[in-house]
């Protein structure tokens, strides 16, 4: 049965059936063959509706809209020009600037997909124009976007907290230092990878000129971060505030929104957001059938029901999470595995807060591992000429950095736990 699902998915994807329909069709087949025939199809609309029945998901189309406005109006270009004039004399300077933008935006939105789409829409065309290799840029953006769930606020951490009763405050604090280290690692790696691109340093006058021009664009993250941290709006609502502000800036300051490019903007927002949301529906449908057949539960239980030493079990757990992460989306993985893994981890003597950080990094990996990785799809959606193969190739080094970082966290658990002792 496991082979049926893995093989079925591979077949559908390879013959070119869109990801969303591959997932959905496989779920339909699974229901038909293993779950009571067409009788089970009554569940399809229930799951399809409930996949999107979540207010926090409304942020996604709004962030896509915002990024479209930033691109069309030129706000994004000015912002990026500023970053470039400040950073371009470093080796791979724009890579550093992009990771920095990802980290900031991650802290804001808490959504990896939103981060990849917003920063990607601005950074990808600019970096490619300036001679950065597209493959590298795509990998950088896919990985940079995942920082959103490690740097607080983080929805997976809140979920882990409510599934286990661990303090959400501690979890957030535990994510800060690993988030910073991973951000720095991505910056350093991208700088090394794109070492050969080093532009002439801009003069101070040029820097200030670009900064002045970008001031309106700069206002955006400041208002958003300020608004969230002062509690004026939630991270979900921040998407609406961002989109409205971007719209106002485009109309009042840039004055270049015409009815024609508004139409283009609307349709391309619809395409990208319907595409991602429909993948989420497909993933939920497949998740439903896999869960009801108890496949992920059995895999997880099998890996942990052994007499092996704690560290061997720990390694097996990570492998299972990696494999589940290839096929399922993150919320499904968490609600299925955490209740099984948490008692095992604590019984083996591992720190549950530290383990939460390990889980979150595994969820970051899930977002960029094929065949089902939302961030990969988002970047593919940004430009028709991007291929999944290209994005995957670009993202491999960053996936390796994440794996190395998990090992580092095993050797120095203090990275995650040092500051959590001070809370309460």
């Amino acid at each position, binding site marked *: 049965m496991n082979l049926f699902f893995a093989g079925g998915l591979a077949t*559908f*994807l*390879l*013959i*070119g*059936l*869109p*990801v*969303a*329909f591959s997932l*959905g*069709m496989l779920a*339909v087949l699974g229901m038909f063959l293993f779950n009571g025939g067409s009788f089970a*199809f*009554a569940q*399809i*609309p*229930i799951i*399809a*509706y409930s996949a*999107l*029945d*979540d*207010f926090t*998901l*409304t942020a996604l*189309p*709004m962030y896509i*809209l915002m990024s479209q406005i930033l691109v069309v109006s030129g706000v994004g270009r000015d912002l990026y020009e500023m970053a470039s004039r400040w950073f371009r004399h470093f080796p791979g300077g724009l890579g550093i600037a992009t990771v920095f933008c990802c980290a900031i935006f991650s802290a804001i939105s808490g959504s990896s997909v939103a981060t990849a789409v917003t920063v990607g829409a601005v950074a990808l065309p600019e970096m490619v124009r300036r001679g950065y290799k597209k493959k590298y840029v795509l990998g950088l953006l896919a990985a940079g976007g995942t920082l959103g769930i490690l740097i607080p606020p983080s929805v997976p951490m809140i979920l882990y907290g409510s599934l286990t009763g661990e303090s959400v405050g501690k979890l957030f604090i535990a994510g800060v230092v690993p988030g910073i280290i991973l951000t720095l690692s991505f910056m350093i790696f991208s700088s090394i990878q794109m070492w050969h691109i080093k532009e002439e340093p801009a003069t101070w006058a040029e820097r200030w000129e670009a900064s002045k021009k970008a001031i309106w664009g700069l206002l955006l993250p400041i208002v958003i971060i300020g608004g969230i941290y002062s509690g*004026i*709006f939630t991270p*979900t*609502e921040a998407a*609406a*505030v961002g*989109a*409205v502000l971007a719209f106002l800036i485009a109309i009042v300051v840039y004055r270049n929104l015409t009815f024609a490019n508004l*139409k*283009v903007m*609307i*349709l*391309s*927002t*619809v*395409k*990208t*957001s*319907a*595409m991602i*949301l*429909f*993948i989420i529906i497909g993933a939920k449908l497949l998740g439903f059938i896999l869960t009801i057949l108890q496949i992920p539960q059995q895999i997880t239980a099998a890996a942990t029901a052994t007499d092996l030493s704690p560290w061997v079990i720990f390694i097996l757990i990570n492998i299972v999470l990696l494999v589940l992460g290839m096929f399922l989306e993150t919320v499904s993985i968490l609600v299925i595995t955490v209740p099984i893994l948490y008692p095992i981890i604590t019984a083996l003597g591992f720190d549950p807060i530290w383990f939460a950080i390990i889980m979150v990094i595994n969820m970051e990996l899930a977002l960029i591992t*094929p*065949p089902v990785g939302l961030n990969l799809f988002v970047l*593919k*959606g940004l430009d*028709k000429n991007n*291929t*999944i*193969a290209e994005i995957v190739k670009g993202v491999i080094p960053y996936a390796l950095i994440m794996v190395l970082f998990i090992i580092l966290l095993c050797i120095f658990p203090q990275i995650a736990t040092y500051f959590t002792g001070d809370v309460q």
Partner: protein
Amino acid sequence: MNRLYKFSDLLIKYAGYLAGILIFATTLMTFYEVISRSFFGMPTAWATELSTYAIIGSCFLGTAYAVRTYAHITVDLLVNRVNDAARRIFAYICNGLGLLFSAILTWYGFKHVFMTFELGVISTSLLRIPMYLPELFIPIGGVLLIIAFILQLIDGNVHKGGDHL
């Protein structure tokens, strides 16, 4: 026949615009909620709920347009490496599978909406919205998907509907 084809394509495109308007509406409603709650101390009873319905609507109304413009992500690993004949066959199989999925989604979607209507299910909120209304987006989107995949089958492997924007 040709006129029906053009009409169908136009229908899908206008559904796409409607989906976009729903995203705009969500943005405005959510923005209004923020202003009303944080600056005037009056949270709305409707913004969050209607936004959720609007986004569900935007997905189901917009997904057929995404099919027609080839915006749905595909994995291009194998398809880029086979000859035209194989690619053509793959395209027919894929559009056929897409059509089958859409038909199942539509039929069971209708049944689901009908059941919700019969049971008289309302939302558990102050708005008490009859739930069959937002659920109607599923079969409507399903019908649009069916049309889109039929158009793709007529096209063969030519990206006629695609990339015009």
